[in-house]
């Protein structure tokens, strides 16, 4: 009996001695990051490299990466925040930020990252990410939305692929000429691949068209407005293209991208991720280059001659519940402001890997012509026409009315009802 007890004591003693020192355990820190970055196939290798590199440079830090499906990210973060178990860092879309900010989920960045570093990010982009006067996120994957066009179809339609349309009437004419081309790859050629499904993005992506018609989605008091003449004009423009067979009714994001990658759409509105999309979806059949099959141009100017770019950034934020905010800030700084990290990230992912304008103009970003086209229009791009926690619900309320107009309903009457529905959504608590 005594022998058994002695053996147990010896085993326990050895086990305790073999454990790491309590100092080492106390010093080991965990950084929890939640976001969709690792779920996008063409982002994943770069993201994994970033996490490994940070841990290599900080051996006392372990990163716990919590992947989320893109469309579920806001829900996942919201539940974690409400449950008091928020991660230290989140990667989100700017349209979700107002909801997170209304839960006091986000930490102001001033004081954590130097003002000099913060000033390197475009002012217009910082404005989108500023809530109650505090900057609460920075662009990780800036996403100015440009007019992406198929140069081959332009040429075939008798248009000059080196002179993409600059005004909205020119743009409409080009769409109509392309959609008159003969069928190919088993289907009709669409002039433009527009998002027209039931998702909130259908309304969100109508905004650049409204801007193109010279309108706004808010009035001079900042209130939601969906009945101005440019809004009606934008709705009628959608209907005209669908009636002419130049855009597919009900097309989802995936449909539009597949259509474009099959060489069956003249235009699509997309961001810097277009390179990975076209490469994957066309199985490398289409090349993006100034003299290739696909190239990009700024959005057509509005009647006042102004070019306004819509944006759909991927942004990074530190949560208010972060246990070690300095550590979280050091990760954000490492990711967005370290030239070596930014260059390597870009080289692997082939997508803009920071919003830091100095780094975007130099190194690997500076040497890439496609990126430089996007960089040119980044300072002018706007992601959020209105910062409201229920913005997405308002967008969602607009969609059935947009679809009704596309199906032939009266644009004015639908816009009025859409405005009422959206205002009701915005006023709900």
């Amino acid at each position, binding site marked *: 009996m005594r022998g058994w007890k002695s053996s147990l004591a010896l085993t326990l003693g050895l086990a305790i001695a073999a454990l790491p020192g309590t100092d080492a355990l106390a010093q080991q820190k965990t950084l929890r990051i939640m976001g969709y970055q690792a779920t996008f196939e063409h982002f994943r290798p770069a993201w994994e490299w970033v996490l490994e590199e940070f841990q290599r440079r900080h051996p006392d830090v372990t990163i716990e990466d919590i992947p989320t499906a893109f469309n579920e990210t806001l829900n*996942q973060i919201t539940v974690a925040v409400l449950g008091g*178990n928020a991660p230290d860092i989140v990667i989100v879309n700017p349209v979700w930020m107002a909801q997170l900010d209304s839960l006091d989920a986000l930490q102001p960045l001033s004081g954590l990252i130097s003002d000099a570093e913060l000033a390197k990010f475009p002012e217009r982009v910082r404005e989108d990410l500023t809530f109650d006067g505090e900057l609460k996120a920075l662009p990780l994957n800036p996403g100015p939305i440009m007019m992406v066009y198929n140069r081959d179809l332009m040429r075939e339609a008798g248009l000059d692929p080196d002179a993409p349309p600059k005004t909205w009437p020119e743009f409409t004419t080009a769409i109509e000429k392309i959609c008159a081309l003969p069928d190919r790859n088993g289907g009709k050629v669409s002039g433009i691949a527009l998002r027209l499904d039931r998702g909130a993005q259908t309304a969100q992506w109508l905004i650049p068209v409204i801007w193109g018609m010279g309108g706004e989605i808010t009035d001079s008091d900042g209130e939601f407005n969906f009945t101005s003449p440019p809004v009606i004009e934008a709705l009628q423009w959608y209907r005209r293209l669908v009636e002419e067979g130049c855009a597919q009714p009900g097309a989802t994001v995936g449909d539009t991208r597949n259509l474009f990658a099959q060489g069956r759409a003249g235009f699509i509105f997309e961001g810097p991720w277009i390179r990975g999309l076209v490469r994957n*979806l066309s199985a490398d059949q289409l090349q993006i280059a100034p003299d290739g099959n696909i190239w990009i141009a700024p959005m057509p100017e509005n009647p006042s001659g102004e070019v306004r770019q819509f944006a759909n950034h991927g942004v990074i934020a530190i949560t208010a519940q972060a246990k070690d905010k300095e550590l979280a800030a050091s990760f954000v700084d490492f990711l967005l402001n370290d030239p070596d990290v930014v260059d390597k990230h870009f080289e692997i992912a082939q997508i803009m890997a920071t919003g830091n304008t100095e780094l975007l103009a130099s190194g690997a970003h500076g040497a890439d012509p496609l990126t430089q086209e996007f960089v040119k229009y980044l300072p002018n791009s706007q992601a959020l026409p209105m910062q409201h926690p229920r913005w997405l619900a308002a967008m969602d309320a607009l969609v059935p009315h947009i679809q009704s107009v596309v199906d032939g309903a009266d644009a004015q009457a639908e816009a009025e009802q859409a405005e009422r529905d959206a205002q009701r959504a915005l006023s709900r608590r």
Partner: protein
Amino acid sequence: MKHAGPVTGSTAQNAVGEGRFTLARLAVATIATLMMLWPIAWMVSTSFKRPEAVFELPPRWIPEAPSLAGYEVALSAAVLRYFLNSVIVASATALLATGAGALCAYGLSRLRFRGNRAVMLALLGSLGLPIPLLMVTLYLLFFRVGILDSYLALILGHTVITLPVVVWLLKDFFDALPREFEEAAFIDGASPAQVIRLVILPLVRPGLAAAAIFVFVTSWNEFIFGMTFISSDTYRPIPAAMGLLFLNEFQYRWGDTMAVATVVTLPIMLLFVLFQRYFVSGITAGAVKG
């Protein structure tokens, strides 16, 4: 005893009418079956396609250059791990929810107490609770007790959402059982636990099987809890894993998605094939009591 008689005009007409009715029923059943099989067949067809062939026009049922790449993904170690997680969670949930539900239903069926009906209505009402509301509450609870990111979180979460249906389903079975069975067992000296285990449960086996299959399928398909309560690959069930692997903005691997979907549908199909008799008799017996 019936005697064969001469076939009259009206019986011949009846036979023709019945024949037509049977044909019509067969036609409707065939069309309905085809409509249900159509997406499954398309899923299987797509699982053999390369990415560029998925949106090919006109669509082809049999791909020109079939590929097994999707099945390499579906049978990879990572996906099999998610598969195993789902098997563990769904099986444990089926056991727990059916066991707890049976005891609860038996009590509600046999014990007369004030509020008996209110309990049943409360269970029914709980089905109306929005899942997001339930999700936040459960998340908070599981976080406080430290079981987030574990099988237990999913098993308990899935039990919560399936238990009311199990209780309602099984209570009808217990109500339909004559009390004389239990009384006879008690007279023979059986304890209450023995009565339940040896007499009652074997008699409601079709109901238990139906309830267990319902719970298993619900747990197997459940997505939101799997996504929210689990943060690591170690415990992630297959629906959440599919969400992370494939359902994103830049999705293009439809062949892989459909191959995984085909593989994960097999256990459910197998379950129905093996227990179809119990399931159908369980559901119908529960539906017509008395």
